[in-house]
């Protein structure tokens, strides 16, 4: 069937048609579209699978590895730092022969964080024993998904795979795609029936045990190595079978275009090959004998094909997006190694993460045609002078020094500059602004990834007028601990303030939060709880309340909200408080107290989000107030083992008043509202009784 789909949709349809039974992923831009589409498919019954919303990327990969070890077909998707965060489990999955498929919407690994795609995430996992397919367009993404399962699950291979599409250039780009019939796919890809990895009490097997003798270890690694070699043959077989059945031929590991008589062959990977093909035609018309070699697979690496195709070519130009700094373009190095015995001039053009247009290819072709030396050049057409200056160390120093003077702020002046592209009515921003008013120039601000973490810091600009840093999503607590230790050692008396959303603090960041609290670092945490992953477009988090609708819980979350306060309270000497932006005086008092507290402090603030909670942006304060008036949020402090309730509503309003104002609860039945009321009542009474010492 012809459909108009994005690359992300195509990965999701590939999962659906492959009848994957366990899906687990963690939101990250630009990957979230895949997860959102899959959640809808599962919710509507279109796909009979369990979709598990993980608390981190490594959690997602663990869930998939676990499900595959138990005997089911599984899928996860991620990109950039997400794939990096999965690293440990990638190696475990391949070592345990678990044919999981990862859909990667490739995005460069930070720092600096970016949305651009350069394959640095997947190429840096080239040694993880994953088969890697790089897709040219949405159609190839869909087809590669289906083939990836068939190849990876083949008894001769038994290895996991990555299907790689470029973030935005493919993931968010819609085009006409032919979606095959389920019946045909079923014929091509039968149900997963593992003979090596499963859980069966009647036939117990141990999976993934350590191999302490080098003979066993090396023996297993040898098997893995040989499986990857064998995959070259299997990929070709599967491509042929696919072509017979579906009429689309991907020619195995590579695809060559006009290379028979070519004097110059350009080697590329990913969506850029489409443009190269067009330009080859144009240059052929002008009389230049140019050809193209597309690398579909990077692992296994098609060195035999490269040798066969390029043995007699005089000039070869390899286009690379990612480099191995200190060495060279990653694809270039491998192509050159494959062709070491040929006398060809093999050059390297590094195109980075830029979008490449016809005219760019034209410049690159001309350069390759004109030059007879073997060169390595960065294609810098789009670079602007200021960026180039920034990246040179000397210039960077100058820039920072010259700006230092302007940056010093006077006593009593706001530490945050004006002008931020936040959604109107952002509850989190109100909390953050109140917090910033408490701090002065002797403060260090850090944030975990999230709406408030990423917006104030678009390199090289920032709205913070005090020293600040942006580390990673998972480890803001750890980084802040390091800063605290260093500042103490340098005898600098500064306040350390950490701003994080629910995802960054109580899901992926929980480990480093707990570590920092337990070690007693003098850090003030502010958790702005908008109850979902808003920065990636509203996906369920551990903090999403019961029955609330998000993109990954289209009919409402089935589980209850994680009570982060209980976890924080389990640590010694932490000043802990809850707050709401509707009660600014209360929030300010708590922020000041937290700043003075010797030891860690943790402030929880409910942060209504008009975009994710679906209400008119003018209602933020009203909703934040209703959260307290209905008892959804109870304002209290907890210190030295004692709980003090700050505000007990004389007469609590029914929760319906709070719920009915938000679109995310619009699907609730009367019965469900009553259930929520009972839950709120129970928690409220428990907190009050605890405070009274009952």
């Amino acid at each position, binding site marked *: 069937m012809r459909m*108009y789909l994005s690359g992300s949709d195509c990965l999701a349809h590939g999962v659906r048609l492959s009848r994957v039974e366990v899906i687990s992923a963690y939101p990250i831009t630009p990957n979230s579209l895949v997860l959102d589409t899959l959640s809808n498919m599962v919710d509507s019954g279109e796909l009979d699978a369990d979709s598990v919303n993980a608390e981190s990327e490594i959690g997602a990969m663990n869930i998939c590895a676990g499900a595959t070890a138990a005997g089911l077909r599984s899928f996860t998707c991620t990109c950039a730092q997400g794939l990096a965060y999965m690293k440990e489990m990638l190696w475990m999955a391949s070592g345990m022969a678990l044919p999981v498929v990862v859909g990667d919407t490739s995005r460069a690994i930070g720092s600096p964080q970016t*949305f651009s795609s350069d394959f640095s995430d997947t190429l840096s996992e080239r040694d993880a024993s994953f088969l890697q397919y790089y897709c040219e*367009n949405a159609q190839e993404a869909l087809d590669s998904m289906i083939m990836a399962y068939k190849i990876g699950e083949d008894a001769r291979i038994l290895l996991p795979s990555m299907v790689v599409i470029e973030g935005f*250039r493919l993931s968010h780009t*819609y085009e006409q795609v032919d979606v095959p019939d389920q019946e045909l796919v079923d014929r091509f890809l039968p149900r997963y029936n593992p003979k090596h990895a499963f859980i069966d009490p009647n036939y117990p097997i141990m999976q993934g045990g350590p191999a302490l003798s080098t003979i066993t270890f090396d023996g297993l690694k040898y098997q893995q190595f040989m499986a990857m070699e064998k995959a070259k043959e299997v990929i070709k077989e599967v491509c042929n079978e696919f072509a017979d059945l579906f009429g689309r031929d991907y020619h195995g590991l590579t695809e060559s275009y006009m290379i028979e008589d070519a004097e110059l062959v350009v080697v590329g990977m990913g969506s850029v090959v*489409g*443009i190269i093909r*067009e330009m080859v035609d144009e240059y052929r018309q002008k009389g230049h004998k140019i050809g193209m070699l597309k690398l579909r697979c990077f692992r296994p690496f098609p060195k035999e094909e490269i040798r066969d195709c390029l043995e007699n070519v005089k000039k070869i130009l390899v286009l690379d997006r990612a480099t191995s700094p200190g060495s060279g373009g990653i694809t270039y190095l491998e192509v050159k190694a494959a062709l070491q015995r040929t006398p060809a001039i093999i050059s390297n053009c590094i195109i980075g993460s830029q979008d490449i247009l*016809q005219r760019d290819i034209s410049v690159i072709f001309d350069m390759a045609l004109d030059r007879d030396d073997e060169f390595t050049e960065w294609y810098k057409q789009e670079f602007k002078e200021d960026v180039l200056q920034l990246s040179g160390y000397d210039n960077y120093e100058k820039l920072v020094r010259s700006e230092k003077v302007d940056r010093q702020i006077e006593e009593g002046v706001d530490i945050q500059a004006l002008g931020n592209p936040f959604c109107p009515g952002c509850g989190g921003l109100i909390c953050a602004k109140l917090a910033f008013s408490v701090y002065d120039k002797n403060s260090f601000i850090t944030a975990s990834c999230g709406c408030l973490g990423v917006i104030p810091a678009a390199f090289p600009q920032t709205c913070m007028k005090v020293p600040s840093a942006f580390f990673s999503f998972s480890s803001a607590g750890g980084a802040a601990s390091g800063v605290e230790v260093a500042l103490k050692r340098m005898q600098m008396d500064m306040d350390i303030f950490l701003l994080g959303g629910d995802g960054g603090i109580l899901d992926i960041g929980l480990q480093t939060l707990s570590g920092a609290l337990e070690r007693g670092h003098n850090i003030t945490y502010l958790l702005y709880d908008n109850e979902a992953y808003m920065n990636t477009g509203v996906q369920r988090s551990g903090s999403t309340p019961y029955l609330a609708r998000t993109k990954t819980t289209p009919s409402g979350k089935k589980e209850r909200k994680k009570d982060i306060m209980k976890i924080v309270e389990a640590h010694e000497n932490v000043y802990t408080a809850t707050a709401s932006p509707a009660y600014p005086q209360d929030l300010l008092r708590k922020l000041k107290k937290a700043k003075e507290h010797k030891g860690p402090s943790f402030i929880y603030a409910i942060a209504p989000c008009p975009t994710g909670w679906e209400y008119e942006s003018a209602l933020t304060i009203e909703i934040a107030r209703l959260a307290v008036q209905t008892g959804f949020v109870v304002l209290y402090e907890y210190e030295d083992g004692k709980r003090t309730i700050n505000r007990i509503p004389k007469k609590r309003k029914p929760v319906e008043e709070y719920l009915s104002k938000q679109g995310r609860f619009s699907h609730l039945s009367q019965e469900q509202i009553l259930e929520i009321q009972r839950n709120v009542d129970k928690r409220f009474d428990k907190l009050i009784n605890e405070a009274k010492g009952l």
Partner: protein
Amino acid sequence: MIRIRIHGRGGQGSVTFAHMLCLAATEEEKFGQSSQGQTWDRRGTPMEGYARIGDKPISERGFIIEPDYVVVLDPTIVGAVNLEAGMKDDGKIIANSPVCLEFKHQSVCVDATSIALEKMKAPITNTAMLGAFTGVTGLISLDSAEKGVRAMLGKKFSEDIIKKNIDAVRAAFQEVQ
């Protein structure tokens, strides 16, 4: 290949405009490819949608830096972003504005907000602007534009809402004739 860049603010449907336009083009056996700028999707922040339409499969991807047409969904964005960046000399701007705006390039202004408020009781201008775009450029037929709207909105919205949107397409189409 024709390149169209759509400027609006987050939440106004600039990207949806691109999808509807390309779906309309595919109704006419053309090839369409639509995408969006790389951004955190914040409500109210400048957003860009991209549409490419051609007679052959389209391999160019990513940002449109040299558009043939620029569509402006929100009058308040004029001056906030450089709408004419990279535009071809004979390029054309189709802008939503109650008053005629001055551009360096040839332009047509339509009061799409009023049309949207009248037909749909909401200031969502992308469908009205699709009508205006169709009328000004003749790149697709009115019939195809309506089919594009239906194909895009049919997945999410009721027949009543789709009809109102199609009314907006027609009204704006008439307006520019």
